[in-house]
């Protein structure tokens, strides 16, 4: 996972959090603060064994991938994008990513359960 700038920090333009256990987070001002929030995120979401990296405060990588607020990609062995997902949350599709991973790994396709429309 690539941790990028917060989607709904309380001091952002789109504040959210607090309801149903949703985290309340301030927008990190320094790289060290960003690392700390990323670490909290990794722990709270029980991300291990997925490795998490942190984008710099210039948000350069997130912007290169138009990643905010969330987005999925699959890079093939040649370094090309085998899958480029749409912008989250409405076009965030783990099923599409899974299909792309299965193609890359030459696994049988599977039938996905219908997801509720957002």
């Amino acid at each position, binding site marked *: *996972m*690539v*941790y*990028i700038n917060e*989607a709904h920090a*309380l001091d952002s333009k*789109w*504040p*959210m*959090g*607090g309801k149903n*256990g949703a*985290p*309340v*987070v301030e*927008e990190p*001002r320094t790289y060290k603060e960003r*690392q*700390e*929030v*990323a*670490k*909290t*995120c*990794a*722990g*709270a*979401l029980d991300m*291990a*064994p*997925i*490795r*998490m*990296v942190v*984008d710099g405060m210039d948000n*350069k*990588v*997130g912007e*290169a*991938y*138009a*990643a905010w*607020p*969330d987005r*999925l*990609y699959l*890079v*093939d*062995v*040649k*370094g*090309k*994008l*085998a899958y*480029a997902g749409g912008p989250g*949350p409405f076009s965030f599709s*783990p099923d599409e*990513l*899974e299909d792309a*991973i299965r193609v890359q790994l030459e696994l049988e396709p599977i039938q996905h359960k219908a997801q509720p429309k957002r």
Partner: protein
Amino acid sequence: MKKKMMLVCSLALLSPLAWSGDDPAPKKAAPQTAESIWEFLVEKYDADGDGVITMKEYGKDKEHWERLDVDGDGKLTRAEVDARKNPNLRGKKAQERKVPKAPKAGSKAPDFELEIVVDVTTLGHESETPDGEKDKAKAKKPEMVRLSSFRGKKPVALLFGSYT
């Protein structure tokens, strides 16, 4: 968010960004569980406990203060903070955002080198010793990962997101 991320994560175990047995997994940190944004702010910044947060109590930069202090009176109240949840009350600027162009399938993946999340107290920053003294933690080189280092070896799933 959590459910969908977990599903993707289970798939991404197939990717080289999944942890190997020798790598340090991040220690679990306590989730931030304030019942509301206002409760979080009061707990952290309302030093005199009067139910109002002043700019002096907030003590951070003007840009973020102005996002919170919608009416510009120099004070934050519960009503003001709660009102920000309503997009109609956030002002026109909140609806404006420059959207960068996303790379398309089939194009070369933009390369990057980023630091892996590990225990931040071991990264050469100042840390507290058990005696309470500030100490420079032993310099441990941050562990970096470069996307292109996997080229010719394995596909890589990239999951971009944040805590919120």
